[in-house]
């Protein structure tokens, strides 16, 4: 980073605050991200609102940003470290049945089909119809597999072979701490980016974005 190593070590030893030592502590703090335990729970606290009852995890503590001067305690910095956390699924405080109904309605609007496979557990299926790739693909199974892997569903229809992308995933509602529920989505089958793109569309449909 352009700091003189010896000078930096000297400054750290003497607890001098300068750009080098501040940068050092920022980087060090980045290593010790809080990801679990009661501190993690604080960071994962969701903000309740009258409109969206299904929320994404939003940090309640503001990020430190690029403030390089005026910090006193490195420990305090540790608690307010960079907030690049990743959270599993979606959380909500609504009643489980309400959550499932909203979720399934959103999926239906996206042409996703599902079946119940367990308690608050659905297996979902989505056909991604890629325009322009269905025509002219007769008997081109090698090309189909190159683009779509082994997940393409070949449907015979009047002798014309159509290749469609199938994304299958599971939806499971869990109970998490503090009367909150967590909706977990897990890909079962299908191209990775199609699954992620579908999830993004799902979040928009649910109006959590």
């Amino acid at each position: 980073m352009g700091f003189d190593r010896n000078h930096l070590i000297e400054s750290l030893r003497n607890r001098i605050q300068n750009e080098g030592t501040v940068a050092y502590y920022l980087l060090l703090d980045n290593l010790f991200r809080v990801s679990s335990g009661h501190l993690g729970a604080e960071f994962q606290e969701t903000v309740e609102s009258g409109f969206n009852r299904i929320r994404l995890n939003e940090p309640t503590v503001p990020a430190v940003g690029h403030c390089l001067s005026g910090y006193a305690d490195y420990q305090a910095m540790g608690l307010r470290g960079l907030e690049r956390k990743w959270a599993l699924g979606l959380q909500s405080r609504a009643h489980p049945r309400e959550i499932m109904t909203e979720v399934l309605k959103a999926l239906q609007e996206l042409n996703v089909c599902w079946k119940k496979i367990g308690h608050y557990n659905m297996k979902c299926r989505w056909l991604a119809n890629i325009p322009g790739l269905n025509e002219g693909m007769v008997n081109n199974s090698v090309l189909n597999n190159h683009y779509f892997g082994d997940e393409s569903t070949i449907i015979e229809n009047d002798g014309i072979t159509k290749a469609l992308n199938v994304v299958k995933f599971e939806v499971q509602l869990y109970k998490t701490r503090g009367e909150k529920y967590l909706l977990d989505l897990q890909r079962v089958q299908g191209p990775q980016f199609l699954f992620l793109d579908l999830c993004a569309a799902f979040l928009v449909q649910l109006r959590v974005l």
Partner: protein
Amino acid sequence: MNNQCGEDHDEATVIGFEVPRSPESSYNNPYPGSEDDARDPPVVPPHLHHSLLSYPSSLNASGSIPLPENVILNHLYIENSEAPRSVVALGFTHRFRSKHVTVVLYKPVPRRGSTST
């Protein structure tokens, strides 16, 4: 016929023993009924929170990250971000043969105007 090229290896397959796909009609879109209210949803397994995505980035460029726990594979994680956000980041880790690949998609958030889609 199973074409080995580009196989996803999501499920281990042995020729002749592949699980047949369930019929499309089995996806009948049932909505939860009153009998589903009887019990609470199961408690979230704590291991599911251990995504590789939350692993702290290393100072040195050659830093390696640990193997992901099998339980987190293919589960969707969403990056925390202050509302209102303009970009959403979605990611998950999956296995390809003997390697693990973490995929992240950054997508702009559509702005809500007066017209709704």
